[in-house]
């Protein structure tokens, strides 16, 4: 029993990460009907920005020991900044010129961006991992026989915080309303005086900020950053977005947790080597039986 509780907590931890990345896919898909293949790399770049910030504090100050809350906040902030800048650049250079091109073109362009970023970091780091300085207090909470480390609680808490933040941003702010309007019907939104280009950029920014911040927290959790770390979580987060219903914000969150839990239980039931297979099987299953996901809208074809 304790083991199952432990697995559930692991699943929720990982699920929160997937959900945060999935939100970026779902938002961009909502406004552009395009899968931003390079989104997983934003998560990776965020993790690198975080690790270099913390290493900088480590090398030049003693703030990592004296005031870890400040350095962690700074690291998360840098993760957001780097991811946002990259997202704006990629939208401007690789996607915007292709907005009216055949549907394959932006997809291939996005794959190009993803390969480029991943391999630039691979070369920059010489294919090594960058180790996160030990800033987060060790230790864990014991509830009965189950122990949950502080860092795990931190990751769970932060992912929930990020998601709530994004949800409020989408639902309550003017920009969020514009994003929803463009997702619903771009032409009508433009007629209503919404600046569509700006809204699309802001959508990328929102998704990137979330991915970058999650990247830093995840990096602290696993203890390092590596060039390949965005790829598999990226695919899985996409799966989560499809599970929940692509284009749906609550769907992405639900899908993320569902996938995280499925993976955790798979590790126990079938063995760790199959944990990457389960996402794929779920993806194919949902595409066959319910392509619009748990919470998505059915789309009729339009004549």
């Amino acid at each position, binding site marked *: 029993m304790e083991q199952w509780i432990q697995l559930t907590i692991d699943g929720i931890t990982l699920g929160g990460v997937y959900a945060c990345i999935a939100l970026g896919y779902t938002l961009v898909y909502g406004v552009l009907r395009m899968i931003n293949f390079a989104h997983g790399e934003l998560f990776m770049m965020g993790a690198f920005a975080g690790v270099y910030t913390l290493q900088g504090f480590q090398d030049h100050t003693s703030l990592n020991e004296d005031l870890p809350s400040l350095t962690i906040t700074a690291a998360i902030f840098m993760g957001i900044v780097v991811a946002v800048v990259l997202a704006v650049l990629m939208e401007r250079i690789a996607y915007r010129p292709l907005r009216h091109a055949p549907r394959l073109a932006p997809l291939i362009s996005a794959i190009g961006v993803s390969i480029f970023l991943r391999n630039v970091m691979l070369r920059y780091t010489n294919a090594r991992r960058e180790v996160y300085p030990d800033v987060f207090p060790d230790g864990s909470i014991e509830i009965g026989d189950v122990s949950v480390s502080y860092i795990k609680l931190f990751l769970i808490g932060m992912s929930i915080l990020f998601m709530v933040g994004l949800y409020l941003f989408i639902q309550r702010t003017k920009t969020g309303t514009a994003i929803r309007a463009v997702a619903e019907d771009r032409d009508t939104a433009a007629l209503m005086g919404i600046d569509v280009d700006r809204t699309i950029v802001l959508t990328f920014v929102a998704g990137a900020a979330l991915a970058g911040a999650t990247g830093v927290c995840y990096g602290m959790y696993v203890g390092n950053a590596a060039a390949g770390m965005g790829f598999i979580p990226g695919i899985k987060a996409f799966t989560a977005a499809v599970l929940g219903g692509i284009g749906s914000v609550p769907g992405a969150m639900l899908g993320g947790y569902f996938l995280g839990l499925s993976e955790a239980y798979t590790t126990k039931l079938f063995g760790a080597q199959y944990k990457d297979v389960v996402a794929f099987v779920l993806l194919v299953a949902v595409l066959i039986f319910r392509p619009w996901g748990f919470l998505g809208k059915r789309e*009729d*074809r*339009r*004549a």
Partner: protein
Amino acid sequence: MAPILSVRDVSRRFQGLTALNGVSLDVEESSIVGVIGPNGAGKTTLFNLLTGFYKPTSGEIWFRGSRVDGLPLHRIAAAGISRTFQNIRLFSNMTAIENVLVGQHLHLQTNIATAVLGLPATTNAEQHAVEVAVAHLRFAGLGGRENELARNLAYGEQRRLEIARAIALRPKLILLDEPTAGMNPGESDAMIGLIRRLRDELGVTVILIEHQMRVVMGVCEYITVLDHGEVIAMGTPTEVQNDQRVIEAYLGTGHLKSGAAE
């Protein structure tokens, strides 16, 4: 004689919005039927239901003695219904003749194996298909434009190419969605001639959506009027023109008798 097409109490709703409500309609073989009505009356929705782009929420569609609603698009095409589109949808990066050759898809047998082997029979069939396609293009008045990319054709030519592509399917029923939209009177007259020849020379039954009353009254033998997703009148052009409900539906948007509505 049984009608070639029979629409029975068909409705279609989109998330609470009723686009068509209990529409019934019979079309006799070898007739030219017009569907008119104000914008948003459900005309194109009707076409999309007839060709399988949408499935009806309720009701049945019978074509030549078999039920076709809910069939996939290519099965309905195979049953003998083809169409053109209001917002022209050609294969724009293919040439005119290729567009028509795609329309012949159902009448050619080549598969991967025979294509690779390139046996004389295959080559001859292909040669014949090209000849037929040239004939179709000529029929639609596009002789000499075979090698032009569809997107480089003039607007009126694109409309005619859609018709050439549609007849390449050798349909029994052809649906034309605003065939003269955006045309000047001279072009419209040529289009009226082409529509008549579809029926007179090819024996195809024609249903068309049209806004130019001159065209509708000039070419259609029967007219169905839709408003707010319902049939409000049916009959010959003269009957429809004098129908009180039709006049009401059109009031404010233009006058039925005095030419172009909207």
